[in-house]
């Protein structure tokens, strides 16, 4: 296995220049998630209008995988309805659990397909999912508000 399949250029770019990494002053839901196995933490704000996610902002510490993944997700899922976001998120989880057997549908996952290599490193899957789980959690909270 080549490390470059894990650390694709896209990932390192997002890591160095993360999108939406600045908590918005207002939000419909705010969540704080932790990865207890490595200590990474993230705080994430989500705003929605009429069932459509209009803003995801976040702050946190973590490895390149977790930071790039939330950066990608916070861009990809904005403008999507909660249903669409959930479907995309499910696709992403499936990709992560594929043990290197899937490449991901770029039409759906866009930049997130760059994380496909993570599925070959079981210990890193939680890193890649941290942000997505936070968004999922925030979506539920925003919807039940």
């Amino acid at each position: 296995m080549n490390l470059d399949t894990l650390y694709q250029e896209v990932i390192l770019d997002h890591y160095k220049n993360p999108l939406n990494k600045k908590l918005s002053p207002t939000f419909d839901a705010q969540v704080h998630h932790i990865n207890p196995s490595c200590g990474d933490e993230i705080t994430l704000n989500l705003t929605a209008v009429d069932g459509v996610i209009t803003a995801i902002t976040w702050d946190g510490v973590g490895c390149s995988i977790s930071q790039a993944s939330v950066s990608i997700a916070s861009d990809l899922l904005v403008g999507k309805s909660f249903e669409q976001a959930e479907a995309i998120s499910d696709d992403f989880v499936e990709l992560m659990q594929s043990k290197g057997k899937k490449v991901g549908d770029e039409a759906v996952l866009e930049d997130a397909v760059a994380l496909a290599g993570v599925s070959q490193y079981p210990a890193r899957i939680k890193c890649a999912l941290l942000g997505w789980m936070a968004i999922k959690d925030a979506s539920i909270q925003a919807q039940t508000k």
Partner: protein
Amino acid sequence: MTFNPIEVRKDFPIFTRTIRDGKRLVYLDSGATAQKPQSVIDAEVDFYRLHNAAAHRGAHQLAEEATDLFEGARAKVAAFIGAAVDEVVFTKSATESLNLVAYAMGNAPVGNRFHLSTGDEIVVSQMEHHANLIPWQQLAARTGAVLRWFDVTPEGRLDLSQIPQLITDRTKVVALTHQSNVLGTINPLSEIVAAAHAVGAVVVLDACQSVPHMKVDVTELDIDFLAFSGHKTVGPTGVGVMWGRSALLEELPPFLTGGSMIADVSMTTATWAPAPAKFEAGVPNMAQAIGLGAAVDYLSAIGMDVIAQHEHALTQDLLAKLLDINEVAVVGPLNMGNRGGAISFTVAGIHPHDLGQFLDSQGIAVRTGHHCAWPLTRSLGVPATTRASLYLYNSVEDNDALIDGVKSAMRYFK
């Protein structure tokens, strides 16, 4: 039937050795601990030689491999007992599993469904192994709950007529053995489980003597917690299983605390990871869990039904031959319905300890004493018995060796 215990024995290296100056090993003590097939030994050795690292604790290749093997073993054990993967908790032994459930309930705060206090009752039976009796005595003492129990009939069966008196609105836990390690009795569960669930109680099954010997499916049994030991299941020492329904594991507080079982920790507080991690503090007994995975693979390849059938036939044979000896009295059911291969007996005029010693001199390994079920043996008026317990590698020739041994002992101690 293609099953042949003499062939099976070849998988177990211990049968290549001899006992007491060259005698063939006749191992009739599997109720205490089972022998190990080479595949189980190899699984442990391969782990140490090739993949040893702390599971769930490293981003390096060895740690990944260790994690995969460890979690793979969990999946095997889950499939073996018909459970979901995350419902299987690795412990060090059935004793720890049962203590885990009892102590964790003791940790439940007011409002938690497992919280116990004065007025609550815990129901066990008179045929429990100390491991499924003392933890509940202690829990009762700590919480103010009352311990009640099923009596055992003279023929060694649970007295099911007591269900209505025993299992009431006050009952919170019914903890029962699936098969008695002394009597061989297999307890019928459906009526008890239904009664327990009707009053909102949970059923904890001590399956130490059933999981190794017959197909046990936790979903079919409809129980709530189950405990068994690896070492009695042709697996390694130092590993046991605690299974619990996932909704219950979510509510049950943890028992041992420490590394890898937390969600968050400060100097004064901690929150918990989801099960099974919540119940597996510390670097786990990886090699042993992996060995247990190989053990259930081994048993599954033969087939638990085939094993149960074999033991059934052997037990019937041995019971008949024992009862042919006038001086022998069998302690436990004489009919083969719901009866497993643990046969306890006494021989008039010979103390079990002396009989065991004599049999040992003939290469025959049995267990003598109260078999960690002292209240039972006392209530039956036989403080000590001799127990032969059968397993897949035993054969009719083993039974005959025992019968010969008993007869020789009668001559020796005449």
